[in-house]
Protein backbone atom coordinates (compact mmCIF):
# COMPACT_ATOMS: atom_id res chain seq x y z
CA UNK A 1 0.00 0.00 0.00
CA UNK A 2 2.97 2.31 0.59
CA UNK A 3 3.45 3.11 -3.11
CA UNK A 4 -0.07 4.54 -3.16
CA UNK A 5 1.07 7.44 -1.05
CA UNK A 6 3.83 8.42 -3.45
CA UNK A 7 1.68 10.30 -5.93
CA UNK A 8 1.74 14.01 -5.25
CA UNK A 9 -1.45 15.92 -4.57
CA UNK A 10 -2.84 17.89 -7.47
CA UNK A 11 -5.06 20.91 -6.94
CA UNK A 12 -8.23 21.38 -8.93
CA UNK A 13 -8.47 24.62 -10.83
CA UNK A 14 -11.19 23.68 -13.30
CA UNK A 15 -14.72 25.07 -13.34
CA UNK A 16 -17.06 24.96 -10.34
CA UNK A 17 -20.61 24.98 -11.60
CA UNK A 18 -23.52 26.70 -9.88
CA UNK A 19 -26.80 25.81 -8.24
CA UNK A 20 -28.66 24.90 -11.42
CA UNK A 21 -26.06 22.34 -12.28
CA UNK A 22 -25.97 20.63 -8.89
CA UNK A 23 -29.75 20.55 -8.57
CA UNK A 24 -30.08 19.08 -12.06
CA UNK A 25 -27.38 16.51 -11.34
CA UNK A 26 -29.17 15.49 -8.13
CA UNK A 27 -32.51 15.24 -9.98
CA UNK A 28 -31.02 13.02 -12.68
CA UNK A 29 -29.24 10.93 -10.05
CA UNK A 30 -32.50 10.42 -8.14
CA UNK A 31 -34.45 9.67 -11.32
CA UNK A 32 -31.90 7.02 -12.28
CA UNK A 33 -32.33 5.64 -8.79
CA UNK A 34 -36.12 5.33 -9.25
CA UNK A 35 -35.58 3.06 -12.25
CA UNK A 36 -32.60 1.27 -10.70
CA UNK A 37 -30.21 2.52 -13.39
CA UNK A 38 -26.59 2.14 -12.33
CA UNK A 39 -27.75 -0.34 -9.68
CA UNK A 40 -27.68 -4.14 -9.82
CA UNK A 41 -30.14 -5.83 -12.20
CA UNK A 42 -32.56 -6.79 -9.45
CA UNK A 43 -33.18 -3.10 -8.68
CA UNK A 44 -34.42 -2.63 -12.26
CA UNK A 45 -36.80 -5.58 -12.17
CA UNK A 46 -39.74 -3.98 -10.34
CA UNK A 47 -39.78 -0.53 -11.99
CA UNK A 48 -39.30 -1.82 -15.52
CA UNK A 49 -41.83 -4.66 -15.13
CA UNK A 50 -44.43 -2.19 -13.89
CA UNK A 51 -43.59 0.24 -16.70
CA UNK A 52 -44.04 -2.61 -19.20
CA UNK A 53 -47.42 -3.53 -17.70
CA UNK A 54 -48.47 0.11 -18.04
CA UNK A 55 -47.81 0.01 -21.80
CA UNK A 56 -49.68 -3.26 -22.46
CA UNK A 57 -53.21 -1.76 -22.66
CA UNK A 58 -51.91 0.87 -25.10
CA UNK A 59 -50.55 -1.87 -27.36
CA UNK A 60 -53.79 -3.86 -27.12
CA UNK A 61 -55.70 -0.67 -28.00
CA UNK A 62 -53.55 -0.12 -31.06
CA UNK A 63 -54.28 -3.69 -32.14
CA UNK A 64 -58.03 -3.10 -31.67
CA UNK A 65 -57.83 0.13 -33.68
CA UNK A 66 -55.89 -1.54 -36.48
CA UNK A 67 -57.89 -4.77 -36.70
CA UNK A 68 -61.40 -3.74 -35.71
CA UNK A 69 -61.30 -0.16 -37.00
CA UNK A 70 -62.72 1.29 -33.80
CA UNK A 71 -61.34 3.27 -30.85
CA UNK A 72 -59.60 1.27 -28.13
CA UNK A 73 -59.18 2.41 -24.57
CA UNK A 74 -60.00 6.03 -23.69
CA UNK A 75 -57.15 8.42 -22.89
CA UNK A 76 -59.06 10.02 -20.06
CA UNK A 77 -59.67 6.72 -18.29
CA UNK A 78 -56.15 5.30 -18.57
CA UNK A 79 -54.89 6.49 -15.16
CA UNK A 80 -58.01 5.38 -13.29
CA UNK A 81 -58.06 1.95 -14.90
CA UNK A 82 -54.32 1.39 -14.36
CA UNK A 83 -54.29 2.95 -10.88
CA UNK A 84 -53.20 -0.18 -9.04
CA UNK A 85 -50.03 -0.45 -11.17
CA UNK A 86 -49.20 3.23 -10.65
CA UNK A 87 -49.79 2.89 -6.92
CA UNK A 88 -47.54 -0.17 -6.64
CA UNK A 89 -44.84 1.69 -8.56
CA UNK A 90 -45.12 4.63 -6.18
CA UNK A 91 -45.06 2.43 -3.10
CA UNK A 92 -42.13 0.37 -4.34
CA UNK A 93 -39.97 3.21 -5.64
CA UNK A 94 -40.69 6.29 -3.47
CA UNK A 95 -38.73 4.86 -0.53
CA UNK A 96 -35.64 4.32 -2.71
CA UNK A 97 -35.60 8.07 -3.41
CA UNK A 98 -35.69 9.35 0.16
CA UNK A 99 -35.16 6.54 2.67
CA UNK A 100 -31.42 5.73 2.38
CA UNK A 101 -30.21 9.32 2.84
CA UNK A 102 -32.36 9.70 5.94
CA UNK A 103 -31.72 6.30 7.42
CA UNK A 104 -27.95 6.37 6.95
CA UNK A 105 -27.68 10.10 7.76
CA UNK A 106 -26.14 11.02 4.42
CA UNK A 107 -27.93 14.37 4.44
CA UNK A 108 -25.08 16.28 6.18
CA UNK A 109 -22.81 15.40 3.26
CA UNK A 110 -25.19 17.29 0.97
CA UNK A 111 -25.92 20.18 3.31
CA UNK A 112 -22.22 20.85 3.93
CA UNK A 113 -22.00 21.55 0.19
CA UNK A 114 -23.64 24.37 -1.75
CA UNK A 115 -26.90 22.36 -1.81
CA UNK A 116 -29.80 23.78 0.21
CA UNK A 117 -32.48 21.64 1.83
CA UNK A 118 -35.07 23.16 -0.53
CA UNK A 119 -33.02 22.22 -3.58
CA UNK A 120 -32.49 18.74 -2.19
CA UNK A 121 -36.18 18.10 -1.50
CA UNK A 122 -37.16 19.82 -4.76
CA UNK A 123 -34.86 17.55 -6.76
CA UNK A 124 -36.35 14.47 -5.12
CA UNK A 125 -39.95 15.58 -5.78
CA UNK A 126 -39.16 16.48 -9.39
CA UNK A 127 -37.44 13.12 -9.96
CA UNK A 128 -40.36 11.13 -8.58
CA UNK A 129 -42.83 13.29 -10.54
CA UNK A 130 -40.95 12.74 -13.79
CA UNK A 131 -40.83 8.98 -13.17
CA UNK A 132 -44.59 8.75 -12.47
CA UNK A 133 -45.37 11.03 -15.38
CA UNK A 134 -43.30 8.88 -17.72
CA UNK A 135 -45.25 5.87 -16.51
CA UNK A 136 -48.50 7.51 -17.69
CA UNK A 137 -47.34 9.66 -20.58
CA UNK A 138 -45.47 6.93 -22.47
CA UNK A 139 -48.48 4.61 -22.98
CA UNK A 140 -50.80 7.56 -23.72
CA UNK A 141 -48.38 8.84 -26.33
CA UNK A 142 -47.78 5.40 -27.84
CA UNK A 143 -51.54 4.97 -28.15
CA UNK A 144 -51.99 8.43 -29.68
CA UNK A 145 -49.17 7.81 -32.18
CA UNK A 146 -50.89 4.55 -33.07
CA UNK A 147 -54.22 6.31 -33.57
CA UNK A 148 -52.66 8.90 -35.87
CA UNK A 149 -50.93 6.24 -37.96
CA UNK A 150 -53.97 4.00 -38.24
CA UNK A 151 -56.15 6.97 -39.23
CA UNK A 152 -59.55 5.87 -37.93
CA UNK A 153 -62.70 7.36 -39.44
CA UNK A 154 -63.49 10.69 -37.84
CA UNK A 155 -61.07 13.22 -36.32
CA UNK A 156 -58.34 11.99 -33.95
CA UNK A 157 -59.10 12.36 -30.21
CA UNK A 158 -56.43 15.04 -29.81
CA UNK A 159 -58.24 17.08 -27.16
CA UNK A 160 -58.82 14.03 -24.98
CA UNK A 161 -55.15 13.02 -25.37
CA UNK A 162 -53.89 16.49 -24.41
CA UNK A 163 -56.30 16.60 -21.46
CA UNK A 164 -55.10 13.23 -20.23
CA UNK A 165 -51.47 14.31 -20.58
CA UNK A 166 -52.08 17.49 -18.54
CA UNK A 167 -54.12 15.87 -15.79
CA UNK A 168 -51.53 13.07 -15.76
CA UNK A 169 -48.94 15.68 -14.79
CA UNK A 170 -51.15 16.93 -11.96
CA UNK A 171 -51.64 13.35 -10.78
CA UNK A 172 -47.88 12.72 -10.93
CA UNK A 173 -47.13 15.80 -8.78
CA UNK A 174 -49.80 14.81 -6.24
CA UNK A 175 -48.66 11.20 -5.99
CA UNK A 176 -44.95 12.10 -5.90
CA UNK A 177 -45.35 14.67 -3.11
CA UNK A 178 -47.57 12.38 -1.08
CA UNK A 179 -45.59 9.21 -1.63
CA UNK A 180 -42.30 10.91 -0.73
CA UNK A 181 -43.79 12.55 2.36
CA UNK A 182 -45.00 9.18 3.64
CA UNK A 183 -41.76 7.43 2.68
CA UNK A 184 -39.69 10.12 4.42
CA UNK A 185 -41.57 9.54 7.67
CA UNK A 186 -40.67 5.86 7.56
CA UNK A 187 -36.94 5.71 6.83
CA UNK A 188 -36.89 1.91 6.77
CA UNK A 189 -37.50 1.03 3.16
CA UNK A 190 -39.82 -1.94 3.77
CA UNK A 191 -41.94 0.08 6.14
CA UNK A 192 -42.16 2.88 3.59
CA UNK A 193 -43.38 0.49 0.89
CA UNK A 194 -45.94 -0.98 3.27
CA UNK A 195 -47.29 2.40 4.43
CA UNK A 196 -47.79 3.79 0.92
CA UNK A 197 -49.52 0.57 -0.20
CA UNK A 198 -51.67 0.44 2.93
CA UNK A 199 -52.81 4.02 2.46
CA UNK A 200 -53.62 3.42 -1.19
CA UNK A 201 -55.56 0.21 -0.45
CA UNK A 202 -57.52 2.05 2.19
CA UNK A 203 -58.33 4.85 -0.27
CA UNK A 204 -59.26 2.55 -3.13
CA UNK A 205 -61.10 -0.22 -1.29
CA UNK A 206 -63.12 1.98 1.02
CA UNK A 207 -64.30 4.40 -1.66
CA UNK A 208 -66.70 2.13 -3.61
CA UNK A 209 -68.05 0.78 -0.30
CA UNK A 210 -68.70 4.28 1.03
CA UNK A 211 -70.25 5.23 -2.29
CA UNK A 212 -72.71 2.37 -2.35
CA UNK A 213 -73.55 2.73 1.36
CA UNK A 214 -74.35 6.41 0.95
CA UNK A 215 -76.23 5.71 -2.26
CA UNK A 216 -78.44 3.07 -0.65
CA UNK A 217 -79.10 5.53 2.17
CA UNK A 218 -80.51 7.74 -0.57
CA UNK A 219 -77.84 10.38 -0.19
CA UNK A 220 -76.72 10.71 -3.84
CA UNK A 221 -74.90 14.03 -3.46
CA UNK A 222 -72.80 12.86 -0.51
CA UNK A 223 -72.10 9.58 -2.30
CA UNK A 224 -70.41 11.43 -5.17
CA UNK A 225 -68.02 13.08 -2.68
CA UNK A 226 -66.75 9.65 -1.65
CA UNK A 227 -64.81 9.29 -4.93
CA UNK A 228 -62.63 12.26 -4.00
CA UNK A 229 -61.00 10.26 -1.20
CA UNK A 230 -58.94 8.38 -3.78
CA UNK A 231 -56.25 10.39 -5.60
CA UNK A 232 -56.91 8.81 -9.00
CA UNK A 233 -60.65 9.57 -8.97
CA UNK A 234 -59.91 12.95 -7.40
CA UNK A 235 -57.71 13.94 -10.34
CA UNK A 236 -60.25 12.41 -12.74
CA UNK A 237 -62.78 14.82 -11.25
CA UNK A 238 -60.44 17.69 -12.15
CA UNK A 239 -60.24 16.32 -15.68
CA UNK A 240 -64.02 16.19 -15.93
CA UNK A 241 -64.25 19.78 -14.68
CA UNK A 242 -61.54 21.20 -16.98
CA UNK A 243 -61.86 19.08 -20.13
CA UNK A 244 -65.46 17.90 -19.92
CA UNK A 245 -64.56 14.22 -20.23
CA UNK A 246 -66.81 11.35 -19.17
CA UNK A 247 -66.35 10.56 -15.46
CA UNK A 248 -64.61 7.27 -14.75
CA UNK A 249 -66.66 6.78 -11.64
CA UNK A 250 -70.19 5.58 -11.09
CA UNK A 251 -72.52 8.53 -10.76
CA UNK A 252 -69.96 11.25 -11.49
CA UNK A 253 -68.31 13.75 -9.13
CA UNK A 254 -69.35 16.90 -7.28
CA UNK A 255 -69.25 19.66 -9.87
CA UNK A 256 -67.11 22.78 -10.00
CA UNK A 257 -63.48 23.42 -9.02
CA UNK A 258 -63.72 21.75 -5.62
CA UNK A 259 -61.67 18.73 -6.71
CA UNK A 260 -58.93 20.99 -8.04
CA UNK A 261 -58.86 22.94 -4.78
CA UNK A 262 -58.52 19.68 -2.85
CA UNK A 263 -55.63 18.55 -5.08
CA UNK A 264 -53.80 21.84 -4.55
CA UNK A 265 -54.35 21.67 -0.78
CA UNK A 266 -53.14 18.09 -0.64
CA UNK A 267 -49.99 18.90 -2.62
CA UNK A 268 -49.33 21.86 -0.31
CA UNK A 269 -49.83 19.64 2.76
CA UNK A 270 -47.49 16.97 1.43
CA UNK A 271 -44.79 19.52 0.57
CA UNK A 272 -45.15 21.09 4.02
CA UNK A 273 -44.79 17.66 5.65
CA UNK A 274 -41.66 17.04 3.59
CA UNK A 275 -40.25 20.43 4.55
CA UNK A 276 -40.87 19.79 8.25
CA UNK A 277 -39.43 16.29 8.05
CA UNK A 278 -36.26 17.54 6.40
CA UNK A 279 -35.91 20.56 8.64
CA UNK A 280 -35.83 18.13 11.54
CA UNK A 281 -33.42 15.78 9.79
CA UNK A 282 -31.10 18.68 8.95
CA UNK A 283 -30.85 19.86 12.54
CA UNK A 284 -29.72 16.49 13.85
Amino acid at each position, binding site marked *: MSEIYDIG*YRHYDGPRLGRGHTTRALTVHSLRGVFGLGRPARSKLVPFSLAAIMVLPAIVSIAIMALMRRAGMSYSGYAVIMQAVVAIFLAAQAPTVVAPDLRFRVLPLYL*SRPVTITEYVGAKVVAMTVALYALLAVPLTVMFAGELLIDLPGPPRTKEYVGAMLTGLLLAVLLAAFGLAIASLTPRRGLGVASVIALYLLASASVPIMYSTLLSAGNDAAARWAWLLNPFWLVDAVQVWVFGTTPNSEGGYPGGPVSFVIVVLLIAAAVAALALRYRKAASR
Partner: protein
Amino acid sequence: MHILDTEGLTKRFPTVTALDGLTVTTGPGVTGLVGANGAGKSTLIKILLGLLPPTAGGARVLGLDVTTRGADIRRLVGYMPEHECLPPDVSATELVVHLARMSGLPRTAARERAADVLRHVGLAEERYRPIGGYSTGMKQRVKLAQALVHDPKLILLDEPTNGLDPRGRDEMLALIRRIGAEFGISVLVTSHLLGELERVCDHVIVIDAGRLLRSSAIGEFTQTTRSVTVEVDEGTQALADRLVELGHGVAPHGRMLLVEVSGPDTLDAIRDATADLGLCLIRLERGRQRIEDVFREAAGV
Protein backbone atom coordinates in the same frame (compact mmCIF):
# COMPACT_ATOMS: atom_id res chain seq x y z
CA MET B 1 -5.64 36.22 6.34
CA HIS B 2 -7.16 34.24 9.16
CA ILE B 3 -8.49 30.82 8.23
CA LEU B 4 -11.15 31.27 10.83
CA ASP B 5 -11.95 33.76 13.53
CA THR B 6 -14.78 33.98 16.00
CA GLU B 7 -15.75 36.83 18.26
CA GLY B 8 -17.88 36.39 21.35
CA LEU B 9 -19.43 33.41 19.60
CA THR B 10 -22.34 32.06 21.64
CA LYS B 11 -24.79 29.27 20.92
CA ARG B 12 -27.60 28.53 23.33
CA PHE B 13 -29.91 25.56 22.98
CA PRO B 14 -33.11 25.51 25.02
CA THR B 15 -31.45 23.69 27.90
CA VAL B 16 -27.70 24.16 27.42
CA THR B 17 -25.23 26.81 26.36
CA ALA B 18 -23.06 24.94 23.87
CA LEU B 19 -20.73 27.87 23.10
CA ASP B 20 -20.17 30.71 25.49
CA GLY B 21 -18.49 33.88 24.24
CA LEU B 22 -15.81 32.10 22.25
CA THR B 23 -13.17 34.36 20.70
CA VAL B 24 -10.39 32.62 18.73
CA THR B 25 -8.41 33.01 15.54
CA THR B 26 -6.31 30.53 13.63
CA GLY B 27 -4.03 30.77 10.65
CA PRO B 28 -3.19 28.27 7.91
CA GLY B 29 -1.99 24.79 8.78
CA VAL B 30 -3.43 22.14 11.05
CA THR B 31 -5.44 23.37 14.02
CA GLY B 32 -6.59 21.03 16.75
CA LEU B 33 -9.85 21.68 18.58
CA VAL B 34 -9.79 19.79 21.84
CA GLY B 35 -12.52 19.38 24.39
CA ALA B 36 -14.36 16.77 26.41
CA ASN B 37 -17.71 15.30 25.30
CA GLY B 38 -20.26 18.06 25.10
CA ALA B 39 -17.63 20.82 25.08
CA GLY B 40 -19.17 22.33 21.95
CA LYS B 41 -16.80 21.15 19.23
CA SER B 42 -19.42 19.85 16.80
CA THR B 43 -21.61 22.87 17.44
CA LEU B 44 -18.71 25.17 16.52
CA ILE B 45 -18.14 23.24 13.28
CA LYS B 46 -21.81 23.48 12.30
CA ILE B 47 -21.74 27.22 12.93
CA LEU B 48 -18.57 27.56 10.85
CA LEU B 49 -20.31 25.75 7.99
CA GLY B 50 -23.13 28.27 8.21
CA LEU B 51 -25.61 25.51 9.03
CA LEU B 52 -26.44 26.65 12.55
CA PRO B 53 -27.06 30.34 13.36
CA PRO B 54 -25.15 31.71 16.35
CA THR B 55 -27.22 33.07 19.24
CA ALA B 56 -24.78 35.94 19.72
CA GLY B 57 -21.38 37.01 18.48
CA GLY B 58 -20.03 36.12 15.07
CA ALA B 59 -17.59 34.02 13.11
CA ARG B 60 -15.76 34.19 9.82
CA VAL B 61 -14.29 31.38 7.76
CA LEU B 62 -11.70 32.33 5.13
CA GLY B 63 -12.82 35.90 5.72
CA LEU B 64 -16.48 35.09 4.96
CA ASP B 65 -19.19 35.78 7.53
CA VAL B 66 -20.97 32.57 8.55
CA THR B 67 -24.41 34.15 8.84
CA THR B 68 -24.45 35.81 5.42
CA ARG B 69 -21.99 33.86 3.26
CA GLY B 70 -22.78 30.29 4.26
CA ALA B 71 -23.19 29.04 0.70
CA ASP B 72 -19.83 30.54 -0.35
CA ILE B 73 -18.14 28.99 2.67
CA ARG B 74 -19.56 25.57 1.86
CA ARG B 75 -18.14 25.86 -1.65
CA LEU B 76 -14.61 26.31 -0.28
CA VAL B 77 -14.72 24.03 2.73
CA GLY B 78 -14.88 20.26 3.20
CA TYR B 79 -16.62 18.58 6.13
CA MET B 80 -16.21 15.16 7.69
CA PRO B 81 -19.04 14.47 10.19
CA GLU B 82 -18.37 12.66 13.46
CA HIS B 83 -21.18 10.15 12.97
CA GLU B 84 -21.60 7.44 10.35
CA CYS B 85 -22.96 8.99 7.19
CA LEU B 86 -22.31 6.51 4.38
CA PRO B 87 -24.99 4.60 2.45
CA PRO B 88 -24.01 0.89 2.52
CA ASP B 89 -25.18 -0.18 -0.93
CA VAL B 90 -23.06 2.10 -3.12
CA SER B 91 -19.33 1.91 -3.74
CA ALA B 92 -16.88 4.51 -2.44
CA THR B 93 -16.18 5.60 -6.01
CA GLU B 94 -19.85 6.13 -6.85
CA LEU B 95 -20.48 8.07 -3.65
CA VAL B 96 -17.43 10.30 -3.92
CA VAL B 97 -18.04 11.04 -7.62
CA HIS B 98 -21.64 11.97 -6.85
CA LEU B 99 -20.66 14.22 -3.95
CA ALA B 100 -18.01 15.91 -6.11
CA ARG B 101 -20.77 16.79 -8.55
CA MET B 102 -22.83 18.10 -5.64
CA SER B 103 -19.91 20.48 -4.99
CA GLY B 104 -20.22 21.75 -8.56
CA LEU B 105 -17.57 19.73 -10.38
CA PRO B 106 -18.38 18.69 -13.96
CA ARG B 107 -18.83 14.96 -14.54
CA THR B 108 -15.37 14.10 -15.89
CA ALA B 109 -13.57 16.26 -13.36
CA ALA B 110 -15.63 14.64 -10.60
CA ARG B 111 -14.50 11.17 -11.72
CA GLU B 112 -10.84 12.17 -11.93
CA ARG B 113 -10.85 13.94 -8.58
CA ALA B 114 -12.64 11.05 -6.88
CA ALA B 115 -10.09 8.54 -8.19
CA ASP B 116 -7.18 10.78 -7.12
CA VAL B 117 -8.54 11.49 -3.68
CA LEU B 118 -9.48 7.88 -2.92
CA ARG B 119 -5.92 6.91 -3.83
CA HIS B 120 -4.53 9.60 -1.54
CA VAL B 121 -6.55 8.35 1.42
CA GLY B 122 -5.32 4.83 0.69
CA LEU B 123 -8.34 3.06 -0.77
CA ALA B 124 -7.24 0.80 -3.60
CA GLU B 125 -9.30 -1.90 -5.32
CA GLU B 126 -11.90 -1.99 -2.56
CA ARG B 127 -13.23 1.37 -3.66
CA TYR B 128 -15.37 -0.40 -6.27
CA ARG B 129 -17.11 -2.56 -3.65
CA PRO B 130 -20.22 -1.51 -1.69
CA ILE B 131 -19.33 0.52 1.41
CA GLY B 132 -21.47 -1.75 3.61
CA GLY B 133 -18.64 -4.28 3.65
CA TYR B 134 -15.90 -1.84 4.73
CA SER B 135 -14.05 -1.79 8.03
CA THR B 136 -14.35 1.26 10.28
CA GLY B 137 -10.93 2.44 9.12
CA MET B 138 -11.94 2.25 5.47
CA LYS B 139 -15.20 4.06 6.16
CA GLN B 140 -13.31 6.88 7.88
CA ARG B 141 -11.13 7.15 4.78
CA VAL B 142 -14.17 7.43 2.53
CA LYS B 143 -15.56 10.15 4.79
CA LEU B 144 -12.24 11.97 4.52
CA ALA B 145 -12.12 11.51 0.73
CA GLN B 146 -15.56 13.08 0.23
CA ALA B 147 -14.42 16.08 2.29
CA LEU B 148 -11.39 16.53 0.03
CA VAL B 149 -12.82 15.72 -3.37
CA HIS B 150 -13.63 19.29 -4.42
CA ASP B 151 -10.15 20.49 -3.40
CA PRO B 152 -11.28 22.74 -0.54
CA LYS B 153 -9.17 25.47 1.06
CA LEU B 154 -10.09 24.21 4.51
CA ILE B 155 -11.44 20.95 5.86
CA LEU B 156 -13.33 20.54 9.12
CA LEU B 157 -12.79 17.06 10.54
CA ASP B 158 -15.03 16.09 13.43
CA GLU B 159 -13.35 13.34 15.46
CA PRO B 160 -11.75 11.55 12.50
CA THR B 161 -9.97 9.04 14.75
CA ASN B 162 -13.18 7.98 16.46
CA GLY B 163 -13.53 4.20 16.63
CA LEU B 164 -10.13 3.47 15.08
CA ASP B 165 -7.60 1.03 16.51
CA PRO B 166 -4.12 2.39 17.38
CA ARG B 167 -2.72 1.64 13.95
CA GLY B 168 -5.72 3.12 12.15
CA ARG B 169 -5.43 6.15 14.40
CA ASP B 170 -1.77 6.64 13.50
CA GLU B 171 -2.50 6.32 9.79
CA MET B 172 -5.38 8.79 9.99
CA LEU B 173 -3.22 11.28 11.89
CA ALA B 174 -0.40 10.90 9.38
CA LEU B 175 -2.87 11.54 6.59
CA ILE B 176 -4.12 14.69 8.33
CA ARG B 177 -0.55 15.91 8.72
CA ARG B 178 0.03 15.31 5.01
CA ILE B 179 -3.13 17.19 4.07
CA GLY B 180 -1.96 20.20 6.05
CA ALA B 181 1.70 20.09 5.08
CA GLU B 182 1.81 18.66 1.55
CA PHE B 183 -1.65 19.26 0.08
CA GLY B 184 -1.61 22.83 1.36
CA ILE B 185 -5.16 22.52 2.71
CA SER B 186 -5.83 23.99 6.14
CA VAL B 187 -7.37 21.63 8.65
CA LEU B 188 -9.50 22.04 11.75
CA VAL B 189 -9.57 18.69 13.51
CA THR B 190 -11.44 17.89 16.71
CA SER B 191 -10.65 15.30 19.32
CA HIS B 192 -11.27 14.79 22.97
CA LEU B 193 -7.75 13.43 23.27
CA LEU B 194 -5.20 16.16 23.61
CA GLY B 195 -2.32 13.69 23.24
CA GLU B 196 -3.08 12.46 19.77
CA LEU B 197 -3.11 15.96 18.30
CA GLU B 198 0.40 16.89 19.37
CA ARG B 199 1.90 15.04 16.44
CA VAL B 200 -0.14 16.71 13.76
CA CYS B 201 -1.16 20.20 14.80
CA ASP B 202 0.47 23.58 14.32
CA HIS B 203 -2.01 25.21 16.65
CA VAL B 204 -4.27 23.91 19.39
CA ILE B 205 -7.50 25.35 20.75
CA VAL B 206 -8.85 23.88 23.95
CA ILE B 207 -12.47 24.48 24.92
CA ASP B 208 -14.47 23.35 27.88
CA ALA B 209 -18.23 23.79 28.31
CA GLY B 210 -18.21 26.15 25.33
CA ARG B 211 -15.51 28.41 26.80
CA LEU B 212 -12.01 28.94 25.55
CA LEU B 213 -9.40 27.44 27.85
CA ARG B 214 -6.39 28.06 25.68
CA SER B 215 -5.43 28.81 22.10
CA SER B 216 -1.81 28.80 21.06
CA ALA B 217 0.75 27.57 18.61
CA ILE B 218 2.06 24.09 19.25
CA GLY B 219 5.51 25.43 20.09
CA GLU B 220 4.10 27.23 23.09
CA PHE B 221 2.48 24.07 24.32
CA THR B 222 5.55 21.98 24.12
CA GLN B 223 8.94 22.88 25.31
CA THR B 224 11.28 21.84 22.63
CA THR B 225 14.10 19.88 24.11
CA ARG B 226 17.55 20.05 22.69
CA SER B 227 17.31 16.62 21.12
CA VAL B 228 15.85 14.94 18.08
CA THR B 229 14.20 11.57 17.70
CA VAL B 230 15.54 9.43 14.86
CA GLU B 231 13.89 6.31 13.58
CA VAL B 232 15.29 4.10 10.83
CA ASP B 233 13.88 1.01 9.23
CA GLU B 234 16.78 -1.28 10.15
CA GLY B 235 20.35 -0.74 11.34
CA THR B 236 19.52 1.39 14.37
CA GLN B 237 22.64 0.10 16.10
CA ALA B 238 24.88 0.84 13.13
CA LEU B 239 23.60 4.39 13.02
CA ALA B 240 24.08 4.85 16.75
CA ASP B 241 27.65 3.58 16.46
CA ARG B 242 28.42 5.90 13.57
CA LEU B 243 26.98 8.96 15.34
CA VAL B 244 28.87 8.19 18.54
CA GLU B 245 32.00 7.79 16.41
CA LEU B 246 31.37 11.31 15.07
CA GLY B 247 31.13 12.64 18.61
CA HIS B 248 27.37 13.04 19.05
CA GLY B 249 25.42 12.20 22.18
CA VAL B 250 23.14 9.27 21.40
CA ALA B 251 20.68 7.42 23.63
CA PRO B 252 18.47 4.52 22.58
CA HIS B 253 14.74 5.15 23.08
CA GLY B 254 12.72 2.07 22.24
CA ARG B 255 13.17 1.41 18.52
CA MET B 256 14.35 4.98 18.10
CA LEU B 257 17.41 7.04 18.94
CA LEU B 258 17.50 10.30 20.84
CA VAL B 259 20.32 12.44 19.50
CA GLU B 260 21.54 15.54 21.29
CA VAL B 261 21.57 18.59 19.08
CA SER B 262 24.72 20.67 19.38
CA GLY B 263 24.04 22.81 16.32
CA PRO B 264 22.60 22.75 12.82
CA ASP B 265 25.36 20.39 11.72
CA THR B 266 23.96 17.63 13.95
CA LEU B 267 21.00 17.24 11.62
CA ASP B 268 23.31 17.20 8.60
CA ALA B 269 25.40 14.53 10.28
CA ILE B 270 22.35 12.34 10.90
CA ARG B 271 21.23 12.72 7.31
CA ASP B 272 24.69 11.94 5.92
CA ALA B 273 25.20 9.00 8.24
CA THR B 274 21.89 7.37 7.26
CA ALA B 275 22.67 7.95 3.59
CA ASP B 276 26.20 6.52 3.91
CA LEU B 277 24.92 3.43 5.67
CA GLY B 278 22.14 3.08 3.10
CA LEU B 279 19.45 3.16 5.79
CA CYS B 280 15.85 4.12 5.33
CA LEU B 281 15.00 7.15 7.49
CA ILE B 282 11.46 6.92 8.85
CA ARG B 283 11.33 9.69 11.38
CA LEU B 284 13.41 12.72 12.31
CA GLU B 285 11.68 15.07 14.69
CA ARG B 286 12.26 17.36 17.60
CA GLY B 287 11.80 15.78 20.98
CA ARG B 288 8.83 17.24 22.79
CA GLN B 289 7.13 17.14 26.05
CA ARG B 290 3.65 15.81 25.52
CA ILE B 291 0.86 18.37 25.39
CA GLU B 292 -0.94 16.49 28.11
CA ASP B 293 1.94 17.13 30.48
CA VAL B 294 1.84 20.82 29.70
CA PHE B 295 -1.84 20.89 30.53
CA ARG B 296 -1.40 18.93 33.65
CA GLU B 297 1.13 21.56 34.71
CA ALA B 298 -1.08 24.43 33.64
CA ALA B 299 -4.05 23.01 35.51
CA GLY B 300 -1.88 22.35 38.52
CA VAL B 301 -2.88 18.69 38.67
